[in-house]
Each structure stands twice: as C-alpha cells, then as structure tokens.
C-alpha cells in the first residue's frame, strides 16, 4: 500500500476541459485575471457551446491518453443558445455511464456549470477534479481495457 501511494504522488494526470465560449471559457478567463490557480495539467479547448462536444471527442481524449475529461457550460436556463446545455446534460449522462461500464470510472468524467462570473468556481472545480483524477491514477486506455488486464 505504501509503495502505491508514493507512486501516485508522482503521477500527474492529463485533463482535457471543454469550455463553452460564453460562460465557462469566460469563467476560466476570470479565474486567470483573478489569479485563482489550478493545476497546469488542465488544458482548455474552446467550443461555442457545451452541446458542440461530440461524445467521440471524449472517447478520442481517453483513447489518446487523457486521464480525465470535463465539460463546462452555462448554468441550466442560462445557455447562450437557449437549450444547448440541456442536450449536453443528457448526452453526457448517457456517455459517462457507458464509459463507466467500459472501465473508465465515472469520476474521470464530469459536466459542470460555470458562469462567466464564476472565476472562483472554475478554479475550485478544476482543483477538485484534478484531485479526484489524481487519486484514481493513470487512465487505462481504451485500447487497453480492464478485461484484458484481468486475463
């Protein structure tokens, strides 16, 4: 047990964050201008709306070695495109439970609502997510499923 925990400390997860242009990307900008830090291993991809994120993007990230994927959008009811984030919520609920079934723990995937005014929340969400994923350890790649490992 001791050995495992020291190994985990060295592990730095790679996190892909999809942020909608109107709320969460602006929230991340606000976190920056407020100097609210979060780990450097979070990298943000700007999308017009969280509903632009195709489940295949998430799959691709895990396939390419991401350890966690987070989608951030406007709060329900505040979507710049009226209803986009509702689609995100439903699509990702399905995808994440499917990924969990495949062995990508549900803690590695997340949808969060961060408004353009919530710089502090953006930073807090990212810190928490990195902590959670770090505790989980490296992601077993999609090409390297647990089924194989168990054999």
């Amino acid at each position, binding site marked *: 047990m001791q050995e495992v925990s020291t190994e985990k400390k060295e592990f730095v997860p790679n996190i892909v964050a999809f942020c909608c242009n109107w709320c969460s990307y602006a929230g991340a*900008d606000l976190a920056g201008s407020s100097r609210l830090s979060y780990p450097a291993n979070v990298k943000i991809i700007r999308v017009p*709306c969280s509903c*632009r*994120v195709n489940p295949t993007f998430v799959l*691709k990230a895990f396939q390419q070695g991401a350890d966690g994927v987070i989608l951030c959008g406007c709060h329900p*009811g505040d979507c710049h495109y*009226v209803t*986009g984030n509702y689609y995100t919520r439903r699509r990702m609920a399905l995808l994440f439970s499917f990924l969990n079934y495949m062995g990508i723990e549900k803690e590695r995937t997340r949808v969060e609502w961060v408004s353009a005014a919530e710089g502090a929340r953006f930073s807090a969400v990212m810190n928490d997510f990195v902590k959670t994923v770090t505790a989980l350890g490296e992601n077993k790649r999609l090409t390297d499923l647990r089924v194989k490992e168990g054999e």
Partner: protein
Amino acid sequence: MQRIGVFICWCGSNISATVDVVKVAEIMKSEPGVVYSANYQYMCSENGQQLIKQAIKEHNLTGIVIGSCSPRMHEATFRKAAEAAGLNPYMVEVANIREHCSWIHKDMDEATEKAVILVRTAIAKVKLNAPLMAGESPVAKRALVIGGGIAGIQAALDIADAGFEVDIVEKNATIGGRMAQLDKTFPTLDCSACILTPKMVDCAQHEKIDILSYSEVEEVKGFVGNFSVKIRRKARFVDETKCTGCKLCMEKCPSKKGLNEFNMGLNTRPAIYIPFAQAIPNVAVIDPTQCIKMKTGKCGICQKFCGVGAIDYEQKDSFIERQYGAIVVATGFKPIELTAFNEYGYEENKDVITSLELERLMNAAGPTGGVLLRPSDNEHPKIITFIQCVGSRDTSGCGKPYCSKICCMYTAKHAMLIREKYPDTQVNVFYIDVRTPGKNYDEFFRRAVEQYGVNYIKGMVGKVYNENGKLMVQGSNLIDNEQVTIESDLVVLAAAIEPEPSVRKVATLLTASIDTNNFLTESHAKLRPVESPTAGVYLAGVCQGPKDIPETVSQASACAAKVIGLLVKDKLKTNPCVATPDENMCNGCSQCANVCAYGAITYVDKEFRLGGGKTEIRRVASVNPAVCQGCGACTVTCPSGAMDLKGFSSKQIMSEVEAICKK
C-alpha cells in the same frame, strides 16, 4: 501545404514573468508546418500588428497562431491585422497563454511546458482552418416595440425622432400602460397623467409611429435586421378609422356592469367603452363577453346611435405581417395575485386593498373622483395602515424572492399625500427595511416621517382580521420588541410586482431567454443591460427587472440608441461559423431541425447523380447561414455525421484533443 506563422506575446511581463516566451517561440520553429516563429513584447500594439502583417506577406503565411491573452480579448484585433495583410481573418487562432496559463501558474517550467502544448494545440487547429467569408444581410429600416407603456412610448419616440419607422404593438385598447393608472409620481409628486399623456399624444401624432393597439404579436420569423413579424389585430367591433371617440355609445349602452379594468375593478363600465378619457387611440372597443347584442342577438343600441356607423358586430381578428430590423420588448408588469396571502384578508375584506387600487381611489379621474373613500361604505378612513413587502423578498415560496424596488417609495408617497390632504388621518406603515436609493429618494422618505408624521413601524404583519367592523392589523414592532395590534379603517398592501404574464409567449416567439422569475435576461448584467442575448432584441422597463419610472425611461432611451445604431446600417455582417451539412451523407431525418433552437434548418429536395446516367432526388438538410447562431447542437445530434460546424469542425476539435493528449 500550410505555411504557419507563430507569434508569442510577452504581454509586458504578464506572460513573460512565468512563461519563457523566447523558448516557446524557439521550440515552435521546429514544429511541422511552421515556417516562421517570433516573440514580441506587445503583439496587440501597433508595432506588434505590423510584425504580424509583415511576416504574413514576407513568408507567404497561410495561417497564423498568436500565443497571447484570451481570444475573447484580442481575437478580433488579430483577425483584422491578418485581413489587412491579405490573409483570411478566419485563418487565425489564438492560444490563450495568459488567462489560462501565465496568470494562474507560478512555476516557470510548468507554465512554459503548458504554453508549448497550448500553442501546439492552436497550430493543430489552424492547419485545418478553412477561409471563411462573413455573409451580409440587409437591414429592414423599421423597429417594432412590443408594449405601449411608458417604456415602449419612450423607446418609440426616440427611435422615430431619429427618422426610423416604429410600430407599437399594444395588447390593450389604449397605450399608456401602468403609468396611466397612477395618480402622482415620486419623488417630485408630478401628476402622472400630466407628464404621460402628452407623450402618448406625441406618439399618435408622430408621422413615423404607427400605434397598433388591441393587437398581439402572433409569430416571429427571421433574425437581427430581418425579423418578419405577424401581428394579430384583435377585433374591437368598432371601426378604428370611423370612430370619433364621442362616447355616445358608452352613455347609451344598457349593459353597464362590466368591471372597469382601468380602475382595478373598483367600479363598472359599459360593454362598449373607451378605457379612460385620454386613451390613445381614442376609439371604443366592445367587450364581447358582456355585449347583449353579441350574446343574445338583440340590442344593437350603440349601432343605432353611432353617428358615423363605426360599430361592426361582425368584425373578425385580422393579421398583418411586417418586416423589422430590431425589436424592443417593453411588456411591463402587473401586481401579483394575492391568493397565497390569506393572512392579510384581501379576498374577504373590501377595505383591504392593493396600492394600485389606492392609486385609483386617489386619482381625480378615478371611481371616487379623487376623494379618498373606503370601498366598503364610502366613508373617509381615519386610520390607514400600509403593509410593505407583500410577496416581495419572500423566500417561503408564496411570493417572490426579489425586492420589487418601487414599493418603499410609492408607499411614502401615498402616506404623504394622505396626510397632506386629510391631516386628521393617522397613517401607519409596517416595513421590513425602507429602501430608498435614488436621487432625492431618501430625502423624500424622510419628509414623510419628519414633516408629515407618518408612523413607520419596523416589523412584519402576521394577520389582518375583521373585528366588529374594524380591521385589526396584528404585527410585530421590532424596535420596541413587542407585538402590536392596530385598529384600522383601511389596509393597503404593497403587493409585489411581476412581469406581465404575456412576456412568456413573447420570449418564446423571440427565443429571448427568461429567468426563473419570468424577467427577460439581459446579455450582460453590467455592460449590455438593454440587449437580450438574442441579437436584435432589446429590453426596456420592468420586463427586464423591477424598476421605477426614471429608470424605465432611461432604459427605453438606451434601447432606442441601440436600435438606431442598428438601423442606420444598410447591411449586417453575419457570423460565418455556422453549421453546414454534407449533402452526400445527409439522409433528411430531421433530427438536426428538431434540436435547432433558431429554426435555421429546413429541408430541400436535391438531385443526386448515382452514376450510369441515373439520378435520384433526396430530401436533405439546408442551413440558413443568416439564422444559424453556430452552437453546434445539430452537429452532435446528426446520426450520420453529416452536419459540421465551420470554425469548430469535428476534425479541428479532434486535432486539438490529440495535440493536448499526445505524450
């Protein structure tokens, strides 16, 4: 083969303090596809832009990446620079190495490494960028104002004065709105009608303003600059062009028992009526639920007496369709229903009234001719108790969580006016807090207390009940820490205000967003307070949030300025980052159209060559680029992957994911 240029900005020391910008620029030189890489103190400056322009020309760059501040900050600046150098502005990508990197990380190695990845990601994306052309759409030089209260009137007058045509659509038979019902206005105590009715007349006489009263918006199509709006002109059963407003019909009408809405139901009106003396248009309307002729077929007295033959019992709703460049929503408010507040006994006791009812009772044109008489027995009330925050600042779920903003001031006004006119009257006010921010507002409130001796009691009221014909108001006095019961002749409730319920329909038609309290949402709470997030839609008055008359008028004028700024343009540039279907892959299933919040997707029949001289006609999706807002909901919904989004294509985002994840 792409020829990419990379430009790393220092942003003074904002980026360079934590990111080794020179090193980043150096590393980028050896990236595949990159033919030029430079760093500079301020890329956004004149010199920085010059550097970019020069490099584009000298190195024949096909795409550029700027590693700098957020694209929300300077993407437009760099696009303009690229365009000036002959590069398509959409061949520019910005890597955010300030807000998302240098400002939040302290360790130089860590931040530099991240900056390298972010710039690489942008390079990966820009390689897949395609030149995009912003389309143009014409602007219809006419504005629509929905709602004819003071907000709509002010906005319409300002827009019309700038020389543009304006239509006011008002659902009631007259414009004027809530302000027309008021007696005096705080803090100057001007007579409301004296300052409002001249503006109503101005509207009616303005050659650029068309008042469509007794009308409602039925359907809205189109987009900023080019809205096509269908308006229902409800049947008033009176020919608007013939009626002279002589009111003879009102005198002769035998059915006089309709509740007078303008007087808050405190008295009655005939079935054919003009809402109030200064109504604009000054044209009668028949209430078909009350008219004897329309209910039984027998009567027709008004028709007989009408000297100009304006009465038409057969009139039907008609529709008009017009084009507008911009729309102002000014649908106003109403006091909340008090059914959830049994403790105040509003339903049971005639002498428990709302402030708006008191307003009519004190108005010279009101049911009592301006003499304050209580409704139950027409006696002078000697003790009047006001209760504040009835349904405002109420988190119990019965009322509204927000402050209605105007009640503290109008109650001080009522109290003051009553004490002035009837000095023998005792006036009590139960309040939670007195909120008087505004020019000359606190002075006004203090006058009520200090000069007019209004008895303010800090505390909430638990119950109003009738005991031997007297209204007993039981509440707490928090200053003296005691329970008090005040015998009163009249109790006035400062009912919370809420958006006029019809705003929900209007918001849906306009795809304008609305909050949990039914207030329309502004684009930015501080910096774009009169614009709806839906382009071309502007918000004035209480439909956007509680506010008083001065604020409403300011907001209406601000709306007008925005509308004028839009209408002076002949053409609008449209966002080229829109959805586009691959017609060969589309099977016309309609799923994309179902998720489109803007109705941008329609279907067309197209002929496809099958080879061997055969053709086939198939139904495929077609996106109207002027309507599409570019959210991308359809791209993910499409089961065959036919739909893609320009500027944020699946391939582009995939390449970004890959660049970030590559180890």
